[in-house]
């Protein structure tokens, strides 16, 4: 048994929020740099060059890369030999979010779904916990912008649709999103599970490095095939037309029911921000 103070968790969340909102993850930056070299049209190159310049400005000025500092999504793997002392885990996370969004001048974007009244401190966070072996806590902070979240979809396919059905669902989601989610996008896909766990798998897929491949060869093939078809759509950076509509597709998988084939497609804009730490 290892004791971890809730203050340690709060401070870790605070630092992760800062790190995540001020920078792109390196694999995203590399993908944008590569895209800037391959695009031919002036507007597509202008869009990508502006984004690369923006990240430099954000770092130098300590300003959020994107003003949509997102709904704070926290994925926590909690070792079952950990004992948390002090506050409730989710309260510690929310306190870390609240302090970070105030101290670092991040936008508070969370509101009541009906009255639209802003909670004014960007809480509550979406907290997903998983109990794992060991005596550590692994935290992943994903500030999720909603321009792209809004364009995400969930399909309950029939098993007969198979691999082709999965690829078609991914490509259709991106086609319907068009220029709205800030392309070039990063596409997180959940395959299998239930209605709810499938959507979570799609979110989890977005915490992977851009360009990484699922270790299962058949799933990696789906990622590659979907990416190729997406980039043949021609939507391009910011929807100005071009070769780069997506910088990556990541699929995560879980067993599902014999009667179904759930596919969740969670869209992330080109501003891939994610920070991780282990306590």
């Amino acid at each position: 048994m290892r004791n971890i103070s809730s203050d340690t968790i709060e401070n870790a969340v605070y630092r992760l929020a800062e790190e995540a909102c001020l920078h792109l993850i390196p694999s995203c930056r590399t993908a944008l740099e590569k895209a800037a070299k391959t695009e031919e049209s002036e507007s597509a190159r202008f869009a990508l060059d502006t984004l690369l310049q923006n990240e430099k400005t954000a770092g130098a000025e300590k300003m959020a890369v994107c003003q949509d500092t997102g709904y704070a999504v926290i994925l926590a793997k909690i070792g079952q030999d950990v004992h948390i002392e002090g506050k409730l885990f989710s309260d510690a996370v929310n306190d870390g979010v609240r302090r970070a969004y105030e101290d670092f001048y991040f936008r508070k974007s969370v509101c009541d779904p009906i009255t639209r009244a802003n909670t004014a401190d960007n809480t509550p966070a979406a907290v997903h916990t998983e109990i794992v072996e060991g005596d550590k806590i692994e935290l992943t902070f994903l500030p999720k912008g909603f321009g792209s979240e809004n364009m995400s979809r969930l399909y309950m396919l029939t098993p007969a649709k198979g691999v082709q059905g999965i690829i078609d669902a991914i490509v259709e989601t991106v086609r319907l999103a068009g220029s709205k989610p800030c392309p070039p996008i990063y596409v997180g896909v959940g395959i299998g599970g239930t209605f709810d766990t499938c959507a979570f798998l799609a979110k989890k897929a977005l915490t992977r490095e851009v360009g990484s491949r699922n270790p299962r060869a058949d799933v990696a093939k789906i990622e590659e095939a979907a990416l190729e078809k997406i980039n043949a759509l021609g939507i391009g950076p910011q929807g100005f037309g071009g070769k780069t509509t997506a910088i990556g597709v990541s699929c995560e998988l879980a067993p599902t029911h014999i009667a179904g084939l759930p596919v969740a497609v969670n869209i992330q804009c080109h501003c891939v921000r994610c920070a991780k730490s282990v306590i």
Partner: protein
Amino acid sequence: MKKVKLPLTDEEIQNLKAGEGVLLSGSILTGRDCAHKRICEYLDRGEKLPFDLGGETIYYAGPCPAPEGKACGSCGPTTSARMDSFAPRLLDLGLKGMIGKGERSDEVERAIVRCHAVYFAAIGGAGALYGNAIKKSELIAFPDLLSEAVYRFEIEDFPCVVAIDCTGGNIYKKT
């Protein structure tokens, strides 16, 4: 890139062509989801708006708070399509320019042509760069909406692309 002064003149609008890069400087208003809803509620009630839209350019944006020594925090464009159901009404009131990101509905495109207006695409995600180009910021209406309130910004060399011009030229509908 071509430099464009705001507020826009009819002649300037006439010369803007879809696909061309521009650097915008001058005065703009901000307004996004909640502000648009509220503007239309004022109009529905037949009340006078707390600000005049005539000749203005509206930026679909909700800024991060301003750090010390800056006029504004990170402030890139939000998805314009969410304002599509409100935009024609604002254009009919004399709004001349819109700055946002992403495609617009056919109805908005027609209203842009009818009202001799223009839609600029800013680069979505470039919040720090745009925030830095905002030199002055003043809260002018709906303070309870926090980041969704209406601000007046003075901007300098705001990089945009003309997305829909006054003749209906549309960068998102290129073949």
